[in-house]
């Protein structure tokens, strides 16, 4: 059981790290603002989500685990809406619109 949890931690955190890497590369290499935004949202949702999932077994108390999930949900909520807002702003500022 303990080993299974450790494997879960390693796998999930590695996955999260990979998504962070992918997000950063996307942010740096994609050609325009909206595609970069696309890269960013993956990190917000899945990258942080996987890292939180991986860290849950290491949290000492259920309360702490709940707090970590709450933080992830908060980032989900704000990340999704802020990306939407930024996309609206980009759309507005486009020369042709």
């Amino acid at each position, binding site marked *: 059981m303990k080993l299974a949890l450790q494997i879960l931690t390693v796998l999930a955190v590695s996955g999260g790290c990979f998504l962070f890497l992918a997000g950063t590369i996307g942010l740096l290499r994609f050609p325009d603002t909206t595609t970069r935004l696309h890269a960013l949202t993956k990190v917000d949702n899945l990258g942080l989500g996987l890292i939180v999932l991986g860290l849950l077994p290491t949290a000492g108390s259920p309360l702490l685990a709940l707090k970590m999930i709450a933080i992830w949900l*908060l980032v989900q*909520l*704000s990340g999704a*809406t*802020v990306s*939407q*807002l930024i996309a*609206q702003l980009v759309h507005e500022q486009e020369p042709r619109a």
Partner: protein
Amino acid sequence: MSLPLALEISFAVVLLANAVWIVIAREVVAAVIIFVAYGLLLAIVWVRLAAPDVALTEAAIGGGVTGVLLLGAAARLRATEATAKPASVSTRLVAAAICVTTSCALAYVVGSLPDAAPTLAPAAMASLPETGLGNPVAGVLFVYRALDTLLEKAVLLLALVGVWSLAPDRLWGGTPELCAFPRRSSTLLLLAQLLPPVGILAGVYMFWVGAKLPGGAFQGGTILAAMWLLVVMTGLEDIPPTSRRWMRLLAIVGPAIFVVIGFAGFALANAFLAYPAGYAKPLIIVIEGTLTLSIAITLGLLAAGPPVRAQHQ
């Protein structure tokens, strides 16, 4: 090289790069955005320096509220950007020389700090048990150096009066305005309705946990202020005119109770700001609770700036 040291070195490099870019960035708004990122990063550095209380404050004020304040100012001053003349080469050279000298002197001081570092930690810890607090920083703020905290509240109120006084006479008591043109969009509205309940909960939690763990009135108050500003920014609710009595009362209630309890200390414990034995913790919680509200309203009003619209009757 051990992993943690690699971590610290990358932090230092990124932090310094940010600082340089804030100074050399071409546009003001860009510099302000980099400053926000810098504030968030600095919060992590404070965690690395084992100062979570400071990290919370820096994330809230450096990364959040200062950013809002400066973004607002930059939006209003956008028109003047082109008119400023850059400093001459000789000024730059002299300035660079002065700054390098200052930095080197400071670095030398850092390098030659005494090995047995002087510390007030034992003194601060010694007075902690009798107050019933578990957070040493809260102990310092409200027991060991309570006078400093009280005076700081006075500074905040003075700054608020100062900001309000910058309005022309006819606008005194009028309504401040956070954004020149609030943006009305359904997404923003959704966020303004969903985030404040979460934020208010986080703010109250931050205040409540502050007696025992890192957190406290400043951090909690700043979250509440940020949530208020969020609601204002999205146009859901206007800032009330600064002449509103309840708002002014709320701004001074925390410091006022602090002063009253301070003077009561003369009668009950023979010194200003001394707490009678056994009542320290409840009294500190009363002070912190009211201070949280006062800090929230004062920081929010400071970020909103002077009134720009006359009071409607």
